[in-house]
C-alpha cells in the first residue's frame, strides 16, 4: 500500500504503486490529465508524489515505448513542412516535460541507437543538457565542465552586434563591435539562435607559443597591423541625460546656455559646443568636463531679500558635463518629454576603442586573458607561406586547464578557412577530430595543425613546429579605457577632508592598514607621515584647558571660548580626521584634552 500525495498533501493509498503511476502517465499522455503534472514513485518510503506546483524545472524528452522512439520520420517530415508544431507533439504524446523528481523513475537514452526495452525516454538531442550559452561552446564535450561554464560566461561579456537598430537606441553602457563575424567552427545552437545575425566575435589566426615573455600568465600578444586593419575595434556608447525639473513655487529648470551671472558659471570655453537650445551639436568632439546639456536651476533657498536684488538672477548652474576621464563624439540627441511632463534631453556620446594593452579577450573555452603586448607585424612570427598570427596565445594556459576543445577548434578553424566551409562543433555531435586531421592532411598541411614558424624579430626558424590555426575570439567588455584612473590632487570628502574614493569621484588610492605596516617595518617614519598628510590641519589649542581655541584672523584676536583672552594659544599640526574624532568624543560627553609640551 503506497501513500499518494498531491503537492505534498496526503490524499489516499493505492495497492499497486507501479501500475498506478503508469496509469497516471498514460492519462497525461492522452491529455486526460494536465500536461504539467509530474508523478514519481519513491520505493524507499513507498510513497507516490504527484506534483502540480509552480517553480519546478522541467525539460522535454521524447517518449519511448518498447524500445521504440515515438518520434518518427513522419513527424520530422511534417515538422519540416510546418504542418505540425511543437505543441502538437506534446498533445500527441510524442514529447513530454519531465521534472527533476520524475526523472528519478526514468531511464533516458542519450542517442537513438542506444535505445533498449528498458528505456523510457530519449533525449531530443544530446546537447540540450547544456544551456543556450554553453551550447555555443564548440566541442564542449572535450573540456571540463568548469571550462565550458567559463566559456559560456565569456559569451555573455563579449562585445558584439547586440542590436540592429542600435543607432536609434539609447542604452546605458554598451559596446558595439565594428566587424563582427560568424564563427567558422559553430554549433547547432548558432543556427537555432540565429547567432550569425548578431555575432559577438571575430575569426583570427592564433599561434600557440611563448613569445618574448609578453604572453605569460594568460596574456595574449596582438598583431599591430591586424589592429590597424580593424581587429577587435569597437565603439562605446554612453548616454547623458538632462531634465527640466519642476520645484515647489512654480520654479523650473531651464535647458539653455547659462548666463555669465549664473552661480557656478564654468567658463565660456566649457559651453562652446552648445547650440542656442542649450544642447551640444552632433559630431562635436567633446572632452572631460565639457558641457553637453547646459542647464540652470532656481536658487536652493529663497530669502526675502533676493526678490529685491536687482540684475542677477541667482540661478544655479546645473549642466550635464562629460564624465571625468572620458571623451568622445556626440552621436545622437533626443529631446522629449518624460512621464512627469518635463522636458527631457538625452545626448549619446560615442567613443572608438582600439584594442590596447590590458583589454580583455577570450576564446570560447574560458581561456580569457588580457593583451600583454601589441607587436608590429614585422616583429610577429610568420610561416613559410607568409601567414602571420593575429594573436599569440600562451601554451602554458593549456595543460592545467585541459581545454582540449580549444585545440580542436583551432584545427577545425584551420580546415574551415582552407576549405571554405563551416565546421560543426556541436557538443557530442561534432565532426570528429580524426576527420578534421585527415582533411587538413589532404589540404597539404601537417595533420596535427603545426607549421614551421620563423621568429619575427631575428628571422630564425623556431626549433619546434608551432601549433597555428584559426579560432573565434571574443573581445570582452572589460576595457582599460573604462577603468584607468590616476590622481595627484583632487576632490576631498567634506566630512573628513580626506581624498574621495572611487573612479567616478576622481578618488585617490588608499594606502591601507597593511601598506602602512610596510612603512613602519622599514622605519620610514617621516615618509609615512608625509603619505598620510592629505588631511593635515593646523589647530589652535588653548594651553590652559587643552581644548580647541579660536584664532580670529579678521579681528586679530586669539581666545579660548572656555578660558577667555588671557591664555597661551599654540598651533598644533594633526590630521583632520583626528580633530573630527575629538569632536565626536565631545558630542558623546567625553572630554578629550590635549596637553602640550616642547617637541625637542
Amino acid at each position, binding site marked *: 500500500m503506497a501513500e499518494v500525495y498531491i503537492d505534498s498533501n496526503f490524499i489516499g493509498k493505492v495497492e499497486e504503486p507501479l501500475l498506478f503511476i503508469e496509469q497516471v502517465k498514460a492519462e497525461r499522455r492522452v491529455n486526460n490529465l494536465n500536461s504539467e503534472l509530474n508523478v514519481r514513485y519513491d520505493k524507499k518510503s513507498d510513497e507516490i508524489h504527484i506534483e502540480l506546483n509552480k517553480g519546478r524545472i522541467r525539460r522535454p524528452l521524447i517518449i519511448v515505448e518498447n524500445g521504440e522512439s515515438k518520434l518518427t520520420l513522419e513527424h520530422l517530415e511534417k515538422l519540416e513542412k510546418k504542418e505540425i508544431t511543437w505543441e502538437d507533439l506534446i498533445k500527441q504524446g510524442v514529447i513530454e516535460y519531465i521534472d527533476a523528481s520524475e526523472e528519478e523513475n526514468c531511464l533516458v537514452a542519450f542517442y537513438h541507437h542506444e535505445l533498449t526495452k528498458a528505456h523510457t525516454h530519449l533525449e531530443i538531442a544530446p546537447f540540450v543538457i547544456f544551456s543556450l550559452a554553453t551550447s555555443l561552446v564548440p566541442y564542449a564535450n572535450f573540456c571540463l565542465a568548469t571550462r565550458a561554464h567559463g566559456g559560456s560566461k565569456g559569451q555573455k561579456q563579449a562585445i558584439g552586434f547586440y542590436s540592429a537598430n542600435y543607432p536609434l537606441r539609447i542604452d546605458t553602457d554598451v559596446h558595439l563591435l565594428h566587424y563582427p563575424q560568424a564563427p567558422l567552427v559553430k554549433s547547432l545552437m548558432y543556427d537555432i539562435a540565429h547567432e550569425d545575425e548578431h555575432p559577438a566575435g571575430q575569426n583570427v589566426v592564433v599561434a600557440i607559443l611563448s613569445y618574448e615573455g609578453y604572453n605569460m600568465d594568460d596574456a595574449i600578444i596582438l598583431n599591430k597591423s591586424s589592429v590597424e586593419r580593424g581587429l577587435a575595434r569597437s565603439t562605446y556608447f554612453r548616454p547623458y541625460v538632462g531634465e527640466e525639473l519642476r520645484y515647489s513655487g512654480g520654479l523650473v529648470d531651464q535647458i539653455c546656455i547659462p548666463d555669465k551671472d549664473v552661480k557656478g558659471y564654468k567658463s565660456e570655453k566649457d559651453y562652446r559646443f552648445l547650440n542656442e537650445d542649450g544642447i551640444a551639436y552632433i559630431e562635436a568632439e567633446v572632452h572631460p568636463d565639457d558641457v553637453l546639456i547646459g542647464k540652470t536651476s532656481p536658487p536652493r533657498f529663497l530669502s526675502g531679500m533676493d526678490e529685491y536684488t536687482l540684475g542677477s538672477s541667482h540661478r544655479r548652474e546645473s549642466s550635464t558635463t562629460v564624465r571625468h576621464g572620458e571623451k568622445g563624439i556626440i552621436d545622437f540627441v533626443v529631446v522629449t518629454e518624460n512621464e512627469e511632463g518635463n522636458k527631457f534631453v538625452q545626448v549619446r556620446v560615442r567613443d572608438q576603442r582600439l584594442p590596447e594593452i590590458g583589454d580583455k579577450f577570450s576564446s570560447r573555452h574560458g581561456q580569457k586573458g588580457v593583451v600583454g603586448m601589441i607587436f608590429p607585424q614585422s616583429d610577429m612570427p610568420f610561416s613559410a607561406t607568409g601567414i602571420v598570427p593575429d594573436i599569440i596565445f600562451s601554451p602554458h594556459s593549456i595543460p592545467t586547464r585541459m581545454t582540449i576543445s580549444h585545440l580542436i577548434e583551432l584545427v577545425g578553424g584551420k580546415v574551415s578557412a582552407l576549405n571554405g566551409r563551416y565546421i560543426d562543433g556541436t557538443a557530442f555531435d561534432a565532426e570528429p577530430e580524426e576527420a578534421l586531421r585527415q582533411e587538413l592532411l589532404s589540404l597539404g598541411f601537417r595533420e596535427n595543425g603545426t607549421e614551421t614558424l620563423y621568429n619575427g624579430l631575428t628571422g630564425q626558424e623556431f626549433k619546434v613546429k608551432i601549433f597555428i590555426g584559426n579560432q573565434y575570439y571574443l573581445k570582452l567588455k572589460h576595457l582599460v579605457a573604462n577603468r584607468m584612473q590616476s590622481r595627484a590632487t583632487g576632490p576631498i570628502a567634506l566630512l573628513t577632508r580626506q581624498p574621495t574614493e572611487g573612479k567616478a569621484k576622481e578618488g585617490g588610492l588608499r594606502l591601507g592598514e597593511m601598506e*602602512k*605596516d*610596510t612603512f*613602519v*617595518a*622599514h*622605519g*620610514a*617614519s*617621516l615618509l*609615512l*607621515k608625509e603619505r*598620510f*598628510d592629505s*588631511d*593635515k590641519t593646523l589647530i589652535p589649542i588653548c594651553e590652559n584647558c587643552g581644548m580647541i581655541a579660536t584664532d580670529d584672523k579678521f579681528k586679530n584676536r586669539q581666545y579660548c571660548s572656555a578660558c577667555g583672552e588671557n591664555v597661551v594659544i599654540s598651533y598644533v*599640526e*594633526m*590630521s583632520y*580626521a*583626528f580633530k573630527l*574624532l575629538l569632536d565626536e*568624543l565631545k558630542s558623546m560627553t*567625553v*572630554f578629550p584634552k590635549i*596637553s602640550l609640551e616642547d*617637541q*625637542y
Partner: protein
Amino acid sequence: MAEFDDLFKKYEGLIPESLLNDVKDHLPAKVKKSDVQKILEKLHIEYELAKIDAGESVGLIAAESMGEPGTQMTLNTKHAGGVSELQVTIGLPRLIEIFDGRKQLVTPSMEIYLSDKNPSPDKVSRIAAKIKETSLNELVKTIEVNVADATIEVDLDKNLLAKYGIRTQAIAKALQKGLKNVNVKVKEDSLFIKLTKEGEELNKLYALKEEAKKTFVSGIKGIKQVLPVKKGDEYVIMTAGSNLKKVLTFEEVDSYKTKCNDIFETLKVLGLEAARQLIIEEAIKVLEDQGINIDIRHIMLATDIMCATGEVKGITRYGIVGEKSSVLARASFETPIKHIIAASERGEIDKLSSVIENVMINQAIPAGTGLPSLRIKSEGAVKK
C-alpha cells in the same frame, strides 16, 4: 692557549662568551697573537653589525614574518595524513589557539617518554593501558540486571584485566567509591552490585547499570586514548587528552622528556619557562608541518611578550593587547567604545608613545627614522 688569555679578557663583555669560546676551541695550533687580535677585532665588528638597529620595528617584522606565510596555510584541520590514528589540531587553527592563549584546547594531547629506554613492545603497551582512562564498560564481558535479586551482575573479562594489570578487588573498590548507595561483592571474576536501600524500584537499577558502565575504574583521568609509537629508537606513548601532573608521578615515565601540548597545564605543573619553551616549540611545529620556514627569533619575540607578565597571556583584546598603555591604541584594535568610555571615566592620559596613536594624529611615529630626537645642553638657560 693561556698566552691569549689577556686578549680574550679584553673582549669579554663585547662579544658573548659562547662566541669567544668558539674562537678558543677552533684556533689552530700555531697562531700568532696579532692574528688572534685580528680575528677578535673582525668578530667584534661582525657581531656589532649583526645586532638589530635601535628603532627597528622588530614586533611588526615578526608579525609580518608570521602573518604573510600564515595566509598560505591550509585551513584544513582534519585528515592529518593517516599516519597516526590520533587527530591533532594542525595548521592555522592550532596557531591561533597557541597565540590566543586558549585555555580549552580542541585536541589536548601528550607525548609520554618512558624511563626504561629499551622496553619490550609488550611492556610499552602495558604501560599505555595502565595510563589510559578506563571505565568499567571496557573491561566487562557482560553486564546484566538480575531482576529477581535486584542486583547488577558484572562478568569481567579476564584477559583484559590481565592486559591492563588490574585486580578484580581494585575494580570493586573503585565502583564502591564511584557509585552512591551501593554494595559491591566480589565472586571470582564477577561483581554483584546491590543497592543498599531496600525496596528501590527497577528503574533505578537500570539507571545504576548505565552509571556503573561509565564509572572510572583505572588509569589516569583525562587520558582518553593512547597510542604507543616508535620515534627513532625510542618508544613514545601519544595520547589524546592530557593530565601532566598525574602522568609525571608514574615511575615508568621519563619525567624529563614527557610533555603535553596544553600550555596552561604546563605552566601550572612545570612553570613559566617551560610554558614559554612549549609555545615556541608548538608554534614552530605547526609552521614546519605546513612547510613554512621562519626565523625562530620572531616566534621567541611573540612568546616573550606573551610571558612577560609572569603568566601566559594571549595576543587578543583580553590578553596583552588589552594591557597597552595607550587608549587610542587599544581603541583602534577592537571594541573602541568600551575603551573610550573606560578611559573617560578614569581620566586616562595617553602619552602618544607608540606607533598607532601617532599614525592616527598624523605625527612621525617613534620608530625607525622617527625615533631619534635632539637634546642640547643650553648653557645660558635660567635655572629654575
